[in-house]
């Protein structure tokens, strides 16, 4: 993950100070479950401590109550999530990046048809985030 964060910095994305508390994380997790979606993976929350919502060109990584509403993980999932086993973590103009709780892996799915395009194992979050962000 450190390599990925370093790459983001090299591409002009300044590290953000954590803008959420532990309480915010718990509230978001509760809200997601209430909406019928799985918990956010812990490693993803770890990433959000460095970049809580990241806007790239035609793409984004969602965050916990970030300043930009477009990147709010609750708002985005409320609009675009039609599955109960997955939670959307990011997007580009072609795909959604989701965490599949059943398979315990990260997937790129076609946003138009819902087809799985690529999968990353449970320890493949940096590769999955790298696949959705375009700098």
């Amino acid at each position: 993950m450190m390599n990925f964060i370093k790459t983001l910095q090299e591409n002009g994305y300044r590290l953000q100070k954590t803008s959420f508390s532990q309480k915010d994380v718990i509230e978001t997790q509760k809200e997601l479950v209430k909406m019928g979606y799985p918990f956010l993976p812990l490693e993803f929350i770890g990433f959000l401590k460095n970049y809580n919502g990241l806007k790239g060109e035609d793409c984004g990584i969602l965050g916990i109550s970030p300043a930009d509403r477009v990147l709010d993980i609750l708002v985005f999932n409320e609009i675009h999530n039609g599955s109960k086993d997955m939670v959307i973590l990011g997007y580009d103009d072609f795909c959604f990046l989701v965490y599949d709780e059943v398979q315990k892996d990260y997937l790129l799915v076609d946003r138009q048809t819902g087809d799985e395009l690529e999968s990353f194992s449970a320890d493949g979050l940096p590769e999955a985030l790298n696949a959705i962000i375009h700098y």
Partner: protein
Amino acid sequence: MAPKGSKYKRKHTVVQEEQIDVESEIAEKPYMAVLYHDEGYVDDFYDLSVEDAGRAYEILLKLAADVSKNRTDAVRAKRKLNDILSASGFHVARHDGNYLHKQELMIIRMDFYGTIDRLKSGLRERELSSYYLYLLSHPLQKRPKVAEYDFQSAPSWKLFSRFHSFRHIEKNLKAYLVKHKIDPQILQLMTPRDFSDLVVQSFQKNPYEQKVTFEKEISVRNEFVRELASQQGEQMADMLLKQGLDERYVYSMINMMRRYGKYNSANLVITELHFTPKVLADLKKAKIDCKNFKVGEPIPQVLIDSLIDSEQGDLLAARDEKGHKLKGEDFPSFDVHHKYAVSDAGDLKSVAYANYKENLCLVRSDIHSLFIHRCDKAKQQGDAKSYSKRLEFIDPNTVFVIGFKEDERLQYDFHKGKRTKRQVMDDKYIVNYEACMKELALNQAAYDRRHNKRVFDADRELQRYKSHRKANKQRKMLIKKELLR
């Protein structure tokens, strides 16, 4: 007035109460105005935030589809939906259900972004073909000639060579193969996934690079934005200024688009347009000659561009009245939108058309995500294939959208209906995905026969893979159920 206690008075009171309820609901949820009001709902829609406009659209869409439950409501919703969408320049697209194979979709995606992601070791062995991995790790003793590498007849490469960006890098791939003395017959055996790995191997600057750029000059999306801003920059700036945005942001953004084709406000350096005491002091501190400049004079564009290029743009940073730098992320950002669904590119004469300038549009990010793509859904894996409802522009020449009103949309025809040289070339490389994959399977089987291996059977391999995935999923479902019990 009806007498107190009469049935007319009671009815009047009920109507009044209902009105109060509606008004308070609208005050709380402004998008409900579009649903409750039978007149003026287009103006109500224009007054909504983008997020609420998306909500109103989604509810109307559901109501309009629900003919069986309440026909009157459905008809009314359909009328409102049509009025609102056509006033905003959209219509709901129809789909014929011609699905594109995921490999083709991924190639379109690579062409659009101009990058390919590296496969990490472990995944590489799983995703790449054994033919490719074997021949790559067993170089020939003698260096083959460049002419021996026949890309034109390589089945999987035919899928890539439909795109100019990939045809353009063929010589780099050949150079890599020659340098590493790779057996030329590898090309006939490689899968599309193998070719994307070969591009990564050929273009990587170091073995740790995660996202490898193969476009030599500029990616398709950035080229589109650069050309659009070069030709329509003034009109775009006027539209943004009309929305009341800070002119320093507007001109900095248009300048970034025009020079680099970039459009993400998070990476934007907003500069002053005129010299301020702070700017002159900062320039002096950085030992940049500014004795000929005075406070209030316009900053020459050459100076702005040269400082940005040398990463010293901050010396000209625009500031608010408290002296804080204006941050790009506090202003609107943009996305490049595919006007015609990429998933539907199978209906086009060539899939390469999917990324043509004529099919792209620069849209404010919030409108792109919260409205245009409102109905895109991540679905349950294994569900039947279905298209989400998709909005398309009524005018196919729409190139820039910053709002729902007519004067917030810009139309421009890049080629005035003429076929471009690129299109003429692309039309020579049209192939069918299934035919290419069949040819690949035959090549691989012939190779196996020559090398006394068991004949490769794609169907058998696929079946084995599917049953493995199914068993894995069932096992996980079982664990989940046990945990929930």
